């Protein structure tokens, strides 16, 4: 399933373990610190329920970044403002892209853990709470990649760039509210196919209607 193609931009994902050497910029601006405080407050606010229980969302966000640091997909399950989102992406890509190979796939970051896995030129990252099962997240990432692969047929980064909305649709069938939704690849594929065909039928209808109108107005 994981073929290696010679063209660099069309190289399919191979499971390649990568990682670390975290060097976070040692210079931090005031804004950074304020943001961190906000994050911490946010975390506390959303994590403490009525009875003072700890309240994690399993996955706080999903991030796909290319080796060049370009964002290919982002999905936020916890609340982050637009400004914070940019900041998080910039910071994390700095941390994750600089980790060397053969290191472990977990990075501790602002009291959370980020689990990442590299497939060809793409890093799939998921941010989870410190108490969650990191090994399982690796499996979820792989689950996602396998479904993508099945859908696009030997998926590569370009597929995700030009059909980014489809990648989102697939992700929405796998994760919801930061929790896993479906463990069967077949079911996900079936649901996506059904919705795609729904769109196709609608398009055909639309074009046939416009044809009719066009002919009628001729």
């Amino acid at each position, binding site marked *: 399933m994981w073929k290696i193609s010679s063209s660099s931009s069309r190289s399919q994902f191979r499971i390649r373990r990568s990682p670390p050497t975290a060097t976070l910029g040692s210079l931090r601006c005031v804004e950074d610190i304020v943001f961190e405080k906000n994050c911490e407050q946010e975390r506390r606010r959303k994590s403490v329920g009525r009875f003072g229980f700890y309240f994690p969302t399993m996955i706080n966000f999903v991030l796909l970044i290319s080796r060049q640091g370009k964002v290919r997909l982002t999905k936020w399950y916890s609340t982050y403002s637009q400004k914070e989102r940019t900041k998080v992406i910039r910071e994390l890509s700095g941390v994750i892209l600089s980790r060397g190979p053969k290191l472990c796939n977990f990075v501790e970051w602002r009291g959370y853990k980020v689990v990442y896995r590299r497939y060809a030129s793409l890093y799939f990252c998921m941010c989870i709470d410190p108490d969650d099962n990191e*090994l399982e997240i690796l499996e979820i990432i792989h689950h996602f990649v396998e479904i993508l692969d099945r859908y696009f047929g030997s998926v590569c980064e370009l597929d995700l760039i030009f059909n980014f909305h489809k990648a989102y*649709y697939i992700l929405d069938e796998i994760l919801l509210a930061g929790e*896993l*939704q479906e463990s*069967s690849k077949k079911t996900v594929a079936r649901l996506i196919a059904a919705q795609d065909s729904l*769109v196709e039928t609608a*398009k055909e209808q639309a074009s046939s209607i416009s044809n009719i109108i066009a002919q009628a107005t001729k």
Partner: protein
Amino acid sequence: MNPFSSGTRLRDMIRAIRACKTAAEERAVVRKECAAIRAAISENDQDYRHRNLAKLMFIHMLGYPTHFGQMECLKLIASAGFPEKRIGYLGLMLLLDERQEVLMLVTNSLKQDLNHSNQYIVGLALCALGNICSAEMARDLAPEVERLLHGRDPNIKKKAALCSIRIIRKVPDLAENFMGPAASLLKEKHHGVLIAGVQLCTDLCKANTDALEYLRKNCTEGLVRILKDVSNSPYAPEYDIAGITDPFLHIRVLRLMRMLGQEDADSSEYMNDILAQVATKTESNKNVGNAILYECVETIMGIEATSGLRVLAINILGRFLSNRDNNIRYVALNMLMKAITVDAQAVQRHRTTILECVKDSDASIRKRALELVFLLVNDGNVKPLAKELIDYLEVSDQEFKGDLTAKICSIVEKFSQEKLWYIDQMFKVLSLAGNYVKDDVWHALIVVISNAPDLQGYSVRSLYRALQTSYEQESLVRVAVWCIGEYGEMLVNNVGVLEVEEPMTVTESDAVDAVELALKRHSSDMTTRAMSLIALLKLSSRFTPTSERIKEIVTQHKGSVALELQQRSIEFNSIIQRHQNIKWVTDLLVVNNIARHPLKILVVESMHLLLGCWCMCRSSLVERMPVLDEAAYLGKRAGSSQPTLSAEKSSKPTTSAASLKLPNGVAKPPAAPLVDLLDLSSDDAPVLPSAPNDFLNDLLGIGLPNSSSSGAAPSTTTDLLMDLLSIGTSPAQNGPSDSNVVPSSAKAAESKPAPVTAPVMDLLDGLPSNASPPRDENLVYPTITAFESSTLKIAFSFEKQPEKPQVTLISATFTNLSSSTLTNFIFQAAVPKFVQLHLDPASSSTLPANGNGTITQSLRVTNTQHGQKPLAMRVRMAYKFNDEDKLEQGQISNFPPGL
């Protein structure tokens, strides 16, 4: 039709953006596209709305602002067709977050779509709701979601269950509504629904204790059955991952079991078997198997599992720890941190492996391991562990050194049993990673050194040695410079050499060289330089031959651009220049050295006196820093209290060289700040009474000849000396510092029979006998009630030796009038300047109730103006009464006449 909107398709736009070579080009393309989309929006263009929104999403991903497209999402969601809705909801989730007001407008559309006949449209609405709903929306739409939970279609059910999780997180009050439906979801067969249902139950347990109880009662059995079924199920291709059927379901069920079994013996009992089965049967050669084992171990640790099961869990972790896969080792370390509360012994067994992980090349593993090691340290293993860590400090990565140093420092501080070890380890850390040591850590080190008189010599020599090799470590330089300044003479004279030390010869100018280097090195920062300047000033009085050189060095900094340095050097320069007495001090230092030789006792005693004078004089000039009360200092540093250390310190008698005794033991002079120094050198000092100055003149008047004629010091000197000494005991006379001084001196008085004060006082007792003629008086004075309150009564009885009319021995008797015992009783007294007071330790610090016992304490009062002024005294009693700290004070003026 808009000329732009028909122009580019989504694919073309992405291509155009990817073709851009520079960021500026990209911005230009994006700007053009945005302009076109805005135009289309303002024209209310229907045909290309979904395409425009898709473009906007791509632009958004690149990080450009796209707020103007938010309303388009709502319009698409409101339209009838599935394709429009699909892209509309995607845009909603991508471009908006729950905090935006616009989101409220979508509530109505969501409500309609949740009731739609098409299951996929319902699915879209549930998905959007689950990902971005706010608390208000959660309240409004909860009934719809709840209804969908009862539906037929499994895809809708699982989405509705996950959506409920979000709703409960936003509004925990709604949890009760979902309890019943959630429990019934666990009876489903469809894995997706099961997974969602189990997750919903887990969240319900977290949100609501009622729900936890309800689920514990109704679902434990069902859960065990689900886990049994899934782990025993034959090969199921749809859910199979590496030979295991649906590991995701495994993990979720285990997690819910942890919630239910926590602190509940019955349900834990019920789970034991299946947990044992999962823990033993699961294959651990693949990541999936390990993920399940990891979750299983966590559940075993979390519930009231049998001890056998716990051993099994710890063994699995041990296996993880020795795995070659970094991920597995990471989670093992993570888990061991939780296991340490369950079974510390078992974790200790893996100490060596964990210590190896601290040296791993992976930052994440190192960090975990270091935190674990920190938890593993105890009194028994602190020495080898600290040694390992410090050895590793030498070779560790730069970015790891900060964390490592902080942890080592706190381990060493927390577990040190002896000062020498503590000081040694700190010196090692300072010379290896001095730049990473936090300020409060080296401040604490200085406090410890200043409180350990017998280690000061050793410290200053070790630091001097370390300084030769590690000049680039900032905090090492600071501590070293401070110590050389304070204890420079010990460096040169090799005072208090320990057995382990190698002999070393350092000349006075070597010591000055070291400080000068610290001052002039370009990498030294302001604090280090300022400290070096002070050290030099101190050395100028201790090492006379070098004082000219020091003056030169100080003068060089008069032109420093840094204000602090400039000011300091100018001030110090004028002190050195104008204060002629500094020479005298150093002359007396010679006398001091004589005193150390075992001469005749009389001579030594007189030397003590002179030393007292010398100290007094020096105390105003370049006195050693007043010793900080270690217990108080450590108390201030929250979280790093060292009860063992400080207890040891307070009881340790100061038996080393006599010169140490005075400054560190008795004098404890109120901190002599720079103002005092300058006051001393200027004649019109308004703040300080002219006493020290007079005294100094007296001292000069006495000169050396007096010191050789033993014991014949004039009374003025004794008076002043007495004044000085009384500082230690009478709190009222030295206002600002009494809070620090009194408790410690009182403590000292309790723990040892005032070994420091006594000899000097004895000496002074002897003095007046030479000066004044003996009188034949043996008067009897009546006993008085000095103080009486509702709880306490104090009686004074007096005694006077006929040959010393100035000296009165008072024995105070304390009686408890209340009905409960007073503990921690401390009596303090203050007298006017012309009276000297000496307090002996009290007979006890506990006062039994109802007058069933007394405390006695004797006071010796010397009235220097005997016959002219009557005695007066202020008293203060501190004690614990019914566990409350109480303080009483009063004035005694009814002394019998003639005292």
